[in-house]
């Protein structure tokens, strides 16, 4: 399957685990914290990821994408962790996402978009607290693609490798995540306008 092929990079990678993994610690911890929602579970997840990566470093092919490789381990570790299992019990992930349709229908009413002006859009996006709250409402499969794409600046191909899903699914999930974020910001903005004098 195409998404199972690691993205090869040019040049031979001859660094050891320490040189490759430690610079990625802030990224791994940030994503882990977002997924687990608390520091203790995030630390456990990152440590477990490091241990598994160390154990499996023998299977890492030099010249392939180490970042995608270690994020795949983090993600798989998360899925079997206490936090990951709890999240899966809460949301029936694949069913909820309805990934059969790549484009999917719009999940916010057109009228809501027409009401918006560039100024209101900027005001919404400038509210960091509101955006963080909106991100926290995303189910893990949507949150993880947003984090990998926007925060970690990974390409769709790398995300597909890390999450072991087709590139089309990456594209679809990112689009759905942004629709959900926009809808959440709209809701918050609407309710705060009602609340404020």
């Amino acid at each position, binding site marked *: 399957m195409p998404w199972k092929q690691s993205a090869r990079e040019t040049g*031979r*990678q*001859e660094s*050891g*685990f*320490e040189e490759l*993994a*430690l610079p990625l*610690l*802030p990224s791994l*911890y*940030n994503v882990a*914290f*977002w997924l687990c929602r608390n*520091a203790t579970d*995030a*630390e456990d997840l*990152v*440590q477990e990821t*490091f*241990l598994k990566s*160390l154990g499996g*470093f*023998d*299977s*890492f*092919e*030099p010249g392939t994408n180490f970042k995608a490789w270690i994020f795949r381990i983090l993600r798989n570790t998360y899925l079997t962790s206490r936090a990951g299992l709890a999240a899966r019990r809460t949301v029936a992930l694949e069913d909820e996402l309805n990934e059969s349709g*790549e*484009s*999917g229908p*719009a999940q916010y009413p057109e009228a809501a*978009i027409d009401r918006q002006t*560039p100024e209101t*859009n*900027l005001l919404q*996006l*400038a509210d*960091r*607290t509101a*955006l*963080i709250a909106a*991100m926290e409402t995303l189910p893990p499969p949507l949150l993880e693609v*947003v984090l990998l*794409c*926007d*925060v970690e*600046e990974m*390409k*769709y191909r790398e995300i597909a490798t890390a999450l072991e899903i087709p590139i089309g699914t990456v*594209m*679809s999930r*990112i*689009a*759905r995540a*942004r629709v959900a*974020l*926009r809808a959440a910001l709209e809701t918050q903005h609407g309710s*705060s306008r009602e609340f*404020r004098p």
Partner: protein
Amino acid sequence: MTDHLSHDILSALADGELTADQLASANQHLAGCPSCTSNALYQSLLKSATARAGHRYTPPPELRERLALLASQTNSQLQPRGIRTAPIPPSRSFGRFGSLGWAAAAAILLVSLSLVFIQRTAQRAERTSAEHAALVTEVFDQHVATLADSQPLQVISTDRHTVKPWFQGKIPFSFNLPQGLPSDTTLDGANLTYLGNQPAAQLVYSIGKHRVSVFLRQRSGKAEANELPAESSGFHVMGFSTEDLEAIAVSDVDPAHLSELVGAIKHAQTGDQQQPK
């Protein structure tokens, strides 16, 4: 125009993931469709805003140290497939100088451990200082942002019975607001915010025409509010800690007035109902 660009295409456009053909087609559509152009702009703004908001958590130094140690211990033994070096044969002379070798190794180990201990102590002091500086910077940034009129407070009220209940369910701790305030001091409102990745209550007061931000958060034990610098960048900073809470106040008002307000808030937390003068 009925066939607008799909969310997938708009999203991939913001991410720079369209193929040359898709990009040409999208650009052609955008040239004649204000609605899709507006959506494309929103996608780009959302992407950059999400990137900023998403950089939220930093690993604790203890975790970094632990993993660095773990990685360095095993690094020499681990090499990815295909670039292993040949195993080094044991030295023939080891047997002859065995006891001498062990003694030398023990001495080197002792010296190394001492050096590591000294280095760790120095690093810990540096880290504490850096944590304080980072906290002060964060507090300043948030206070200055509050001074901007374009950012209204999330709860606007002079009534402590309105401001305190507003935080219920939003922060994992509780606090008290003083019944009486020093003269010329009023409560303006509050914000829910984050300090050092922890939820915090930002109480905003006015002393005359000066604004004061008082940040309250759960005591973490990492950065003691009492140890904060008294003045930095023209702003005065004061803090106090109770058993459960850590408070940091920042303002450009004179230190005496700031101290009165901080004292009143501290008394309210400790249950001492002494009224400020």
